[in-house]
Every structure is written in C-alpha cells, then in structure tokens.
C-alpha cells in the first residue's frame, strides 16, 4: 500500500457534475466537428451549466447494468460502498447520450440518411442496455433554419425523424453550423442539462424505491449505501441542499452500524467520506460553522474507534488525514472568499494532523519493531485478484466478509504483519514536516508568531529525528532568538539541547561551542550535573579534543560524529571562532566602564573591566582585550595595546596578586581588571568609546573562541536584568572587601578627553555700564599659577559669538583707546599674542570696546596657552585655556532736549524772518558716572544765522547723574521765498568724556541733529520799548515801534483799549500810513494806578492790507503786562531793599 492509501479518492473530492456523452463527432478529422467540440469544452466559464462532456464512439461499451433485484430477502450486502461506484457515475455512465448527425432538412437523400440516423440511435440504445440514460439527436446543418412554423418541410421531416428514431420531439435538436456557433452550443447544453437533471432525479427515485424492501437487521449497510448514493446523485443534479440532507442521514446511519474489529476500518472510511462531503457542502453553502461543528462531532465520534490494537497506527493515520483534509477544505473555502480568524483557521487542523502523524510514528515504533528475522509474508495477503479492493475500507484478504470473527485467523495474522511491515517503510517524518509546514504557513497568515515558532521547533525536532541535522539546526536557530528575547528559558533550554545534539552529530564546532556556552550559562534551566557535563565537553572542545557524545543520540550517528570530530582535530586552521555575545546569553558576563565620563588630558584614563562566570566549574582564559574607538576620528589602535591582558601579563590587577589565578574565572565571583592609559594630546575634545571587550577562551595553540561584547557589556538577557536590579531595593549582602556586587556595577562606555585644568587666573577690571559711543576700557589681568612657564599665551577678546547679529555690527573692539573706533574694527579680536608667562607673573592688557547701540552684550575673554606636564612618566604638552565672560550693559550718557523760544522765552512753534529768537539746549546726564562736557558747538545750516559769535556756555562743565546743563544761542532767520517754509537748523555737537580716575579716556563727539523749524515772513513788526517796571502814580513812558517789512505802503489802524490799572496819555485811536521799510514810533505815557503785575492797556493793531495777519499775532511781539511797584512812604530805596 502506498502512502497515498489514506488519501481520499479523487472522485470523492471533486465537485460532481452531470455527465453527458457526445457521439457521432469525429473530432480528429472533421474540422466542423472539432469546432463544435471546442465550443463545448474549451474555455468553459463559471456561468455555463455544470456538465462534463466526453466524446465517445457510438458503440461505446457502457458499464453493464445489474439485473434488477425483485426481492432483497436473501440478499446479504458485502460492504458499504463499492470502490468503483462514484467513478462510474462521474465518468462512465452518462445521464444523456447525444448523437450528432449531419443532416439538412432539404437533404436530397433524406430517406437514407433518416434510416442511418435511426440505426445509429439504435446502436447507442443497445450499448446502454437498460440504463435509464436518455438519448438525444443533434442535426448538424449547413443552413440557417427558418423561424419555427415557417418551414413546413422541416417540421414534417422532424416529426418523421422522431418517429423513426423513437425520440420525443424534445430530444431532437438542430445545430446550424454558422457564425453563432457558441450561442447555439450554449442553448444546446442548457437543454442537455435539463435532460441530465431529469435523469438524476429519476435515479434518486429509483434508489429511494429500494428502501421498502430492506430490513434493519441484515441490510444495515444498504441503508448507508442508498443514502450516500442519493446524496451523490443530488450533487450530480446540483441539488446541494438535498444532497446535504441525504449525506447527513447517511452519516448518522453509518454510526448506527454494528462496529467490531473486522469492519471498523470500513465504517471509519465511509464515515470519513461522508463527513468530507458534508463539510465540503457546508463550506459551499457558506455555513462554515456548520462544517466545523460537523467535523468536531465526527472527530468526537471516531476518536475512540481505534479498531485493532495491532494496527493502531492505522487509526492515527486516518485521524491525521481527517484533520488534514478538513484543513484543506477550510483553506480552499478561504481562497474562495471565506474569512477565518486567529482562533479558527486551517492551521489548527494541520497542526492536529501533524500531531496524529507524530502519534502514528510513535505507534509504528512500538508496533512494527519486529525481530530482524520477520520478513514480509508470502504469499502477499494484500494482493487481490483485481489489484484493487471491491469495497472501500475492507481488508484485501477477506473482502466482503461481514461477520464478527475473521474467517481465517492465520490469514488475519499474516495480513496484519504485512500491514505492519509496509508501515515501517513509510517516511513518517516527511509527512509530519509537510503538515507542520502547512500549519506554519497558516499561523503566519493569522498573526500567531508564537504558534508559528512552536511549530517550527517541532519541525526542527522532526528533522532531527529524520537525521537531517542541517535543516533541523537551521530551523531551531531561527526560532531560538524569539524565545530568548521573550525570556522563556525553559523552552529555550529545550531547544538548545536539541540544537546541541545536532551540532554535535554534525561536528559543527562553532555551533557546538555557542550552544554549550548558553546551556552552561544562567539562561539555561538544566540541572547542575548536566551543566557540568556540558562544560566539561566544552573545555574538551577548546582543548581540541573530541567531546563526549550527547545523551539519547542515535548510536549510528554518534559513530559518524566521533569520526567527524577526530577529523576536526587534525584539521589545521579554522580553530578560531568569534562569538558576538549580544545575540546569546553565554555563561560569562562582562561589564566595562571608564571611571569617569570625562578625563583631563594630564591624568591617566582608567578603565575597569568586570567579568563573571555562571558555569559550575572555574574557567581559564588566555587573553582579554578591549577595543576602543574614538568617535570623532578613527580607531585608536594605539590605545588598545594598553587594554590587553594576556596570560602571565603584567596587567595591573589590584585585586588579585597572582597572575596565574588572574586568568581563571571562579563561578559566581566577579573579577575586576583595571587598565590605565594616557590619552594623546591631539585627542582633546574627542570622545573615546569602548567598541568591544573581547575575551579569549582556550589557547592559541589549540582552539579558541573569542567572546566579543560590543560596547563593552551586555548579552541578550542583561538589559532586563539590569532593569530588575535597579528596581530592586533588596539590601545587598555585604561583600568582602575585594569582591564586587555584580548588579551594582554601572556602565560607562564612553568618555571625553578634556583639556587640562588651567592654573591661571583671568581678571577683568572695568566700570560698567558702558556709555554709548565711548571707548569703554576693560583691563584684563592674567596671573599665572602654573609651576612651569606658560607658553604662547593668546588672548581672544570681544563679543561672544552666537549672539544677536546686530550686536556684531554695533560693537567694536580695539587695543588702541586713543582713537574712536569705526566700522572697520572687528567685534572679536582673536589670538592676541601675549608671549610667555613665567610662574607667578602677570600680564595686564587694556582693551577698548566701542558700543554703538544700547543694551546688554556678552563679552568673552579666552586665554589659551600651552604648558608641558608629566603624566605617568610621560612628557606631554598640554594645551590649556580659560574663558571669562562678562555681561556688559550699555546706556546712553545723556539726553539733549532742544527748543526754540522767543526773546521773551516764550515757546515758538514757528520763527519769523529777521526776527531774532533763541535756541535752547538742555543736556540731561543719564550716566551713573560723571561726565565732563569738553566743548559744545552749533553748526548752523545756511538757513540760519547766528546773531553774535556763538560761544559754548557749557564748556568744562561736569555733570553728575541726572544733572542738567543748559545753553542757548541767539539766532535769526534770513528771508525765505514763499512766505513760509520749513528749514533745517543744523547740528549740535557735544564733545564729552567720562570723568574717571580709572583710565584716561578719549573725548567723544556726539552729534545731535537740530530739529526743523517753520519760518514765516511777517508784514509788520511791532516792538515796544518800556522800562522794566513801573511805580504806582508815577509816569511810565512806553514807546511802540511799528516797522513796515513789506515793499508796500501800509495803512495801519491802532487803538488802545482802556485798562483799570492804568491811565494813559497818547493817541487812543489813530490811523496812519507807513512807507515801505519805514518805521513809525508811537509814544504813550502810562500812569499806573495799582501795584503788582498789571495788564498793560492793550494795543490793537489792524492791518488793512493784510487782513489775515491778526491782531493776536502782532500782539505777541509786545509785552502784555508789567510789574508795578507800590509807592513807598519813606522813599523808594527802602522798598527796593525790602
């Protein structure tokens, strides 16, 4: 029996479709027939009716029809279902035979052709021999037929032909061979389909009619058979609902059968078939839950029906197949659009199938391990006369036997033996692996990564059993890391054990070492003695010896492995392995740290490396080295030599005095190694990182493995351990002084080399705040505290970079304070050489800063120098630097306020041509320091003239904070063109300096632009001449002058309004003419009546020619009041004195 013995027969698994046979077609030589045949069967789309066509010769021999039984009384069935039955109805017995015949209605030899056709029909009928198969005739015609009823000849001849062939009118068809062949064919096959359905309907009724003859005692098998047949015919009829009903009945009937050891297989086989049909139809009806429920029921019912104990493997094989085929059905349904979910997908069925396949393999191991002498029995009990079985699920050596006891116990034994021997040769592992990989594919699809991993482990183990160690190792290695990252140590240990066996049996040294290391380490849950055994083996491998075989290995494979390992010993080279630790959890742990995150260049860099082993026995190792990287540039090979600890090296180990012990790791104890090196001066500012820490196990002379901790620490498990350790608050046990608690060791895997601490002081002396535009003096004092000469002192001073860009524009720095800076000076003076500085000496350097704008700015003073130092007996030149920054505020030194006033000190909004006025300046000091005003001057624009030589009135004045200095200049405007215009006045220049004892500063010239002013022509100028005061009842002479400033004669009307305080004499109202450029004088004698400030009698001037020049305007030139003193009793002098 082949491994396919348990496979379901293809006729069961296919979808049954009506079978129609076509005869009379010569598809080989006749092109028209060929075209017809192609139209029937080529490119059948899903929307065409489900029919399978076959071209058969007219005299084809169809399966013989058994003579109809009239009574079942004495009939005892020999089995449930014949093996050939399904195929017979699918492929051999047609529902309809169609005879194709070329005949036109107007054929000249009509009569002959008609009788030939009738003969052919007769031949078909005879060959069908009593089957209910229908016969139909298709006339292939060259002409397009007329519409029905119009061609009288045709209808007459058609009925004649029907009569001759004994056909009903419905069974005669015409196929015109024209352009629309496919259209005609589709119509034809729809008609055929109807015929076929009628046929199957009749068949179902025929089978049903047997039922009444059956009795429950002897014909149990027939009940099942008939229900199955009805189901099958219904399917052929495409009546799947009824088919399902019949199959369901059949299924319950099959379990009602009396089951015993001899017919168990037959019952299970049939139950399996029917179950398959039910599940398939349920999926087809889109009721997957029904399918699953049916399958569960099926499995529950059949699980315990093991049958013969000696052939228990048959049961598991069958169970496996049940699950597998259900999985296939499920998967197929999914491909057709069903959606499955994570917890209900075909993967579970494949997995279960694999489980039963594994079970089967185990049972084979128990049941089929015969003595070597037992061979395959002869004659072959599995041989049958026909080469196949008559009934599904029966034993070849007792076909048709239905009673409880086997007919011949000897034959039975032989048969069982034959089956057992056959079973031995079946490649079980292959089957299991195929099922598992099916399941893996499904679980991958339904987001079950862990299930997938689990199945892959099983696959790996199966490969291991099948002795395909390479594949086993590949799979196991693939999933190992999943279990490692999820920290399922129990599972990882089990996988590692299998992997170790594989690598041992293949003589894979590197894998063997890797797995051993992990199995010995802390991630493994193996008992101590196992660990100890593995470690001993590992040491052997490192000594280049053959390790002891792993337990429970196939003895034959062990032998091959041993020779492989011996070969490895003699093999030179390839004895060096590097293991990247971060992917594993080896038994050695390592942590490396720099003592500090930064080291000064003049002190040695200290590196501590901690190593710990978790293995049961002490381990010797030969070399340890640390690779360092400078991040900024390149690998610093030169440092690495300082971080190497070799066998019997002079490693500066503080804790362990003996170098011999030094290279030995005692389990559970933390070993610490200290390294020191001096960084190179050019590495100042760079970062040095631990790239890796390496540990060499074994000897260079034999075989060695190089454990490499990238970044200096950590394997696959340590990050979690570190987290747990830092969460833990547990009081750690006090370790003896020379011991270190592993968990407390922190990591510092990089450091920055920083420059030496400078031993100089930089002091700044200045008087803040700075004043705008002044040359602000800052004195830098550099005092050396070094023990040796500080060479090449360089000062960089100025605006600290990285501030507002505007500050760069408005700040200048210079060494020369005598001149005011301009834009050509920089904001930062770099590298001012200051020479060397001997110990204890100091340098004083004044710097001048010119700030154009106010606000605060940060100034930087950077002193760099080099000094030689000795570190660890090594002379190095260190570059040092010291930075000093200061924030400088700049404020405005003073504010200048300017205003125009009249000669009466009245505020002027506009000035008048040729009439003198005053320009007043107020200088208000805002500086916290005293300011000395050196000079001031007015630079007048051309539109202004000074009346006298303008002399500074504030020269040499010193202003304290918030003091104010004022001066004024008498000015006058020359005539302007258009009556009025706005003119520029010029500039006011103040020369000043800070009055300071601290440093002599230069004079600063501050230029203030004078405001513009409105200048206006005036036609008449009036001014009065009067004493500075009057006295009560004493005459007060007042002279008014009226000047005509125009080129015209002016009529002027003057009135004097009376006042209570004065009596006066003079013209009270007068009208006069003033010639151009002439001046008129008017004299009044006022006589004051009251003392105090008195309003003068008001002079009203009315210019008749210039009505727009108002009286008020002119009055502004005249005093409006005067102080009148009272009359003294004893003379004026006493009052004046008072």
């Amino acid at each position, binding site marked *: 029996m082949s491994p396919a013995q348990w496979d379901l027969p293809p006729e069961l698994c296919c979808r049954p479709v009506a079978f129609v046979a076509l005869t009379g077609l010569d598809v080989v030589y006749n092109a028209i027939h060929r075209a017809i045949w192609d139209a029937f069967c080529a490119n059948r789309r899903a929307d065409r009716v489900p029919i399978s066509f076959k071209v058969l010769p007219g005299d084809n021999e169809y399966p013989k029809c058994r003579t109809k039984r009239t009574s079942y009384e004495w009939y005892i069935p020999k089995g449930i279902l014949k093996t050939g039955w399904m195929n017979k109805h699918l492929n051999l017995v047609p529902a309809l035979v169609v005879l194709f015949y070329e005949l036109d209605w107007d054929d000249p030899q009509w009569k002959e052709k008609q009788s030939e056709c009738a003969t052919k029909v007769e031949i078909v009928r005879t060959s069908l021999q009593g089957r209910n198969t229908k016969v139909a005739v298709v006339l292939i015609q060259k002409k397009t037929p007329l519409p029905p009823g119009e061609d009288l000849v045709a209808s007459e001849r058609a009925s004649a032909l029907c009569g001759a062939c004994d056909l009903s009118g419905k069974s005669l068809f015409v196929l015109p061979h024209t352009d629309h062949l496919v259209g005609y064919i589709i119509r034809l096959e729809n008609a055929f389909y109807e015929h076929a359905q009628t046929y199957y309907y009749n068949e179902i009724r025929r089978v049903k009619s047997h039922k009444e003859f059956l009795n429950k005692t002897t014909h149990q098998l027939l009940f099942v058979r008939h229900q199955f047949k009805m189901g099958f015919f219904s399917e052929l009829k495409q009546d799947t609902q009824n088919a399902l009903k019949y199959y369901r009945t059949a299924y319950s009937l099959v379990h009602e059968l009396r089951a015993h050891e001899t017919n168990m297989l037959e019952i299970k086989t049939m139950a399996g078939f029917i179950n398959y049909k039910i599940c398939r139809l349920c999926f087809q009806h889109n009721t997957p839950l029904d399918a699953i429920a049916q399958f569960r029921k099926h*499995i529950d019912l059949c699980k315990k029906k093991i049958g013969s104990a000696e052939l228990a493997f048959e049961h598991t094989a069958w169970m496996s197949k049940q699950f597998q085929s259900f999985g296939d059905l499920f998967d197929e349904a999914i491909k057709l659009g069903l959606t499955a979910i*994570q*917890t209900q997908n075909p993967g*579970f069925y494949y997995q*279960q199938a694999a*489980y039963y396949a594994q079970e089967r393999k185990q049972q084979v191991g128990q049941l089929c391990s015969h003595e070597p002498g037992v061979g395959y029995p002869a004659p072959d009990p599995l041989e049958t006369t026909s080469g196949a079985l008559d009934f599904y699920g029966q034993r070849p050596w007792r076909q048709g036997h239905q009673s409880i006891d086997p007919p011949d116990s000897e034959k039975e034994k032989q048969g069982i033996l034959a089956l057992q021997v056959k079973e031995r040769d079946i490649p079980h592992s292959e089957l299991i692996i195929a099922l598992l990989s099916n399941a893996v594919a499904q679980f991958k699809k339904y*987001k*079950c*990564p*862990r*299930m997938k991993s*689990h199945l892959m*482990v099983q696959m790996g183990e199966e490969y291991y059993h099948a002795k395909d160690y390479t594949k086993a190792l590949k799979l196991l290695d693939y999933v190992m890391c999943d279990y490692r990252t*999820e*920290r*399922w140590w*129990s*599972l990882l240990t*089990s996988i590692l054990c299998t992997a170790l066996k594989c690598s041992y049996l293949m003589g894979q040294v590197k894998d063997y070492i890797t797995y051993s290391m992990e199995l010995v380490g802390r991630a493994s849950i193996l008992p101590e003695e196992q660990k100890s055994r593995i470690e001993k083996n590992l040491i052997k491998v490192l000594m280049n010896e053959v390790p002891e075989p792993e337990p429970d290995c196939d003895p034959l494979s062990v032998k091959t492995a041993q020779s492989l390992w011996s070969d490895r010993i003699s093999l030179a080279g390839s004895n060096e392995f590097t293991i990247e630790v971060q992917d594993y959890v080896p038994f050695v742990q390592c942590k490396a740290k720099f003592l500090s995150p930064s080291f000064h260049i003049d002190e040695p860099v200290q590196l501590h490396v901690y190593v710990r082993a978790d293995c049961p026995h002490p381990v010797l190792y030969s070399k340890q080295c640390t690779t360092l990287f400078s991040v900024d540039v390149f690998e610093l090979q030169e440092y690495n030599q300082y971080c190497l600890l070799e066998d019997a090296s002079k490693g500066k180990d503080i804790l362990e005095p003996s170098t011999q012990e030094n290279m030995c790791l005692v389990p559970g104890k933390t070993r610490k190694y200290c390294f020191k090196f001096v960084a190179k001066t050019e590495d100042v500012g760079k970062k040095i990182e631990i790239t890796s820490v390496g540990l060499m196990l074994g000897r260079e002379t034999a075989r060695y493995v190089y454990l490499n901790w990238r970044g200096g620490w950590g394997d696959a498990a340590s990050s*979690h351990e570190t*987290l*747990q350790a830092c*969460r*833990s*608050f*547990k009081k750690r046990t006090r370790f003896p002084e020379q011991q270190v608690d592993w968990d407390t060791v922190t990591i510092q895997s990089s450091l920055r080399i920083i420059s030496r601490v400078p031993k100089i002081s930089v002091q700044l002396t200045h008087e803040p705040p700075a004043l705008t535009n002044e040359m602000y003096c800052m004195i830098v004092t550099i005092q050396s505290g070094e023990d040796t000469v500080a060479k090449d002192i360089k000062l960089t001073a100025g605006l600290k970079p990285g501030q507002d860009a505007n500050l760069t524009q408005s700040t200048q720095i210079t060494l020369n304070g005598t001149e005011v800076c301009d834009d050509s000076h920089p904001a930062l003076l770099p590298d001012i050489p200051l020479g060397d500085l001997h110990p204890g000496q100091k340098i004083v350097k004044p710097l001048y800063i010119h700030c154009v704008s106010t606000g605060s700015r940060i100034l930087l003073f950077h002193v760099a120098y080099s000094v030689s130092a000795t570190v660890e007996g090594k002379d190095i030149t260190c570059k040092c630097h010291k930075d000093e920054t200061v924030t400088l505020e700049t404020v405005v030194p003073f504010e200048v306020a300017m205003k125009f006033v009249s000669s009466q000190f009245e505020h002027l909004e506009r000035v008048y041509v040729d009439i003198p006025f005053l320009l007043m300046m107020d200088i208000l000091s805002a500086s916290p320091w005293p300011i000395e005003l050196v000079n001031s001057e007015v630079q007048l624009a051309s539109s202004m003239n000074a009346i006298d030589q303008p002399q500074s009135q504030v020269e040499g004045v010193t202003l304290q904070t918030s003091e104010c200095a004022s001066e004024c200049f008498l000015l006058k405007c020359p005539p302007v063109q258009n009556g009025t215009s706005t003119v520029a006045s010029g500039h006011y220049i103040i020369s000043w300096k800070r009055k300071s004892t601290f440093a002599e500063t230069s004079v600063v010239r501050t230029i203030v632009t004078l405001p513009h002013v409105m200048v206006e022509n005036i036609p008449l100028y009036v001014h009065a001449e009067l004493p500075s005061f009057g006295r009560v009842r004493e005459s007060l002479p007042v002279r008014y002058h009226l000047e005509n400033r125009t080129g015209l004669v002016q009529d002027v009307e003057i009135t004097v309004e009376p006042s209570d305080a004065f009596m006066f004499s003079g013209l009270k109202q007068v009208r006069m003419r003033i010639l151009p450029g002439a001046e008129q004088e008017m004299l009044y004698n006022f006589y004051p009546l009251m003392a105090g400030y008195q309003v003068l009698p008001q002079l009203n001037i009315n210019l008749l020619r210039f009505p727009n020049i108002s009286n008020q305007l002119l009055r502004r030139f005249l005093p409006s009041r005067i102080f009148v003193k009272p009359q003294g009793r004893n003379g004026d002098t006493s009052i004046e004195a008072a």
Partner: protein
Amino acid sequence: MAVCIAVIAKENYPLYIRSVPTQGELKFHYTVHTSLDVVEEKISGVGKALADQRELYLGLLYPTEDYKVYGYMTNSKVKFVIVVDSSNTSLRDNEIRSMFRKLHNSFTDVMCNPFYNPGDPIQSKAFDSIVSTMMVQAF
C-alpha cells in the same frame, strides 16, 4: 480543575508556571506561550477608549484537541493563563472566572509584599498553595 496555571509578565515572560507533573511540563509551557498570541490579538482588538472598562477575563483563548486555554489580564498587563482538560466538561465559565479572581487576589497579595520585586519570578508559598487548590490533584 486546571492542569496548568501560569502567570505571565507584562513583557510576556513567565513569572510563574506550574502544571500537573503527569504530562510533559514542556508541552504546557508551549501551550501557555502560544496562547499569548491570542491574548495579544484580543488586547489589540480593544480600542483605547474601551481599555479602561475592559473586562479582565479574556475568556477561552483557544481550544486544542485535548485542552482548553483560558486567559485573564490584569490592568497592569500581567496575564494569567489556566489550562484545563477538554474532557472536563463539568467546568463552567463561572467557575473559571472565580478561579481567575482567586488567582488575581493572591497575585495582588504577592505584589503587596514589600520584599517582592515586581518582574521577578514568584516564589511565594501562599500563592503556591492557592494555585495548588485549583490544580488537578496528582495522585
């Protein structure tokens, strides 16, 4: 009664796992481990908004031929898994729920122990005895 009871950390590694010694311990470990697939899927299915009023009991995770695996997740994402024999049909959903509740209470006690470092394997005797009461008694 359960055949296997496991407590799984938030990061999906086992904090506690105990099974009846009669059948292969490893098999149960695999069963518990694979059931985490379903747990993760169930959790991710619940929207963020609903996460607060989420029921802790996750129900039947998946049925195998021989066992039924039930899940439960605490608010701190620690998972409990209980495996029962499929043949044990007398066990109702309510009983499973009460088993989980008992387990959760006992686990809370473990967490309240100031000497227990969360994330470490559970070694509490009290917890062990509670688990024992829920396990199928080995004979």
